[in-house]
């Protein structure tokens, strides 16, 4: 990187910079005991797409719940013990149909409903996805393995404010008779972001 300053020392490695900032926090007594382990556990285990999947499975099983989820996502997820962080004040649930496909992005940074979807995947934060999905959605989805016919309308949702979006995937026909936990196990992070679909003919072998 070119820079204006005249410091001739090399830029410290990002590992050393992260360690330096940690030392600043620790020297000032700002880091609680076990904090790093607890945070990592929360980010890797508690912020999980299994949470969003529970809401999807409930909506597939209970039409009245689905109506509430589509009307006011935040209060509907709270009914089943889920929540958003305090600064995410509004949740809009986007229903996929045979004719409409929804997909989410954050072009300005990388916002997501991470308590429901899990921490955003690396590809979601990459410049390629952020730049291209709003303008070339059909091509980008095809490149990612989802080939939608021209008859399906694509709606891209750009997360630019405190509203969060998740996709309610279409329930696959092969899921008849499954219990709610079994239904939840079919629902992936990718399907709730909207880069995959769960029903035939779009369902992928890599998904449950």
């Amino acid at each position, binding site marked *: 990187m070119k820079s204006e300053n005249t410091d001739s020392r090399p830029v*410290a490695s990002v*590992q050393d910079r992260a360690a330096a*900032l940690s*030392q600043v926090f620790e020297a000032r007594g700002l880091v609680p005991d076990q904090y790093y382990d607890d945070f990592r556990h929360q980010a890797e285990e508690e912020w999980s797409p299994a949470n969003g999947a529970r809401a999807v499975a409930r909506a597939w099983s209970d039409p009245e719940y689905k109506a509430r989820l589509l009307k006011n996502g935040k209060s509907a997820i709270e009914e089943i013990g889920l929540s958003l962080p305090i600064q995410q004040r509004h949740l809009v649930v986007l229903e996929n149909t045979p004719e409409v496909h929804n997909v989410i992005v954050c*072009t300005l940074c990388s916002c997501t409903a991470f308590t429901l979807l899990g921490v955003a995947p*690396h*590809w979601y934060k990459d410049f390629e996805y952020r730049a291209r999905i*709003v303008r070339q959605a059909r091509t980008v989805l095809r490149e990612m393995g989802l080939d939608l016919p021209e008859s399906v309308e694509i709606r891209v949702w750009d997360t630019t404010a405190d*509203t969060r979006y998740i996709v309610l995937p279409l329930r696959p026909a092969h899921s008849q008779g499954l219990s709610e936990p079994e239904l939840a196990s079919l629902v992936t992070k990718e399907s709730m972001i909207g880069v995959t679909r769960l029903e035939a003919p779009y369902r992928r072998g890599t998904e449950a």
Partner: protein
Amino acid sequence: MDGMHDLGGKEGFGPIVFEFGGPVYHEAWEARAHALASLARKLKLFNIDEYRHAIERMEPRHYMSSLYYERVLTSCASLCVEKGICTADELQELARGQFPLARPISPGRVNVPCGGNYALDARVRIKNEFVSGHVRLPAYVRGKVGTIVGISPVVPFPDAAAHGLQGSPEPTYDISFDSEHLWPDASEAGKVCLAVFHSYIDEAV
């Protein structure tokens, strides 16, 4: 600000490197950077809007050559220096090398409390305005006309909050645009929907 972060619709980027699942962190320092930024917010050293804006203020070549968690780290470190938690010299000494930080902040702006709301299904035009401080309007909808498809509760005004100013909470509107209106003759057909703050709307049309 018209920064490098405003990527929606930019051309020249190649294929997405996609994988199912995938690890939350590839390396330990990424988890550390994420944890520190989250801790700083819990301690109210800075707010979410200041945090986002400090990423946007990174020198453009640094922004473009950084992975996500390096941007997280740079924002957190920059704000710690700006808020007096530590000095840039201390960070460089501890890191044993240069520690690039965000560029200085420009003045922010407050909003005026909005009187009245726009209605669902209204057609509205977005202001064609240029804001050198923090703003949550992607350049690709400046001056464009779309249809309101959703309305949020009132939320803090980011253009003020990112600069430590006291704005008035206001609603955001989910507005649906035809992509062929956003990039005439240079876009695939489809809809692009995004949440637009009340203050960013010019008028009903």
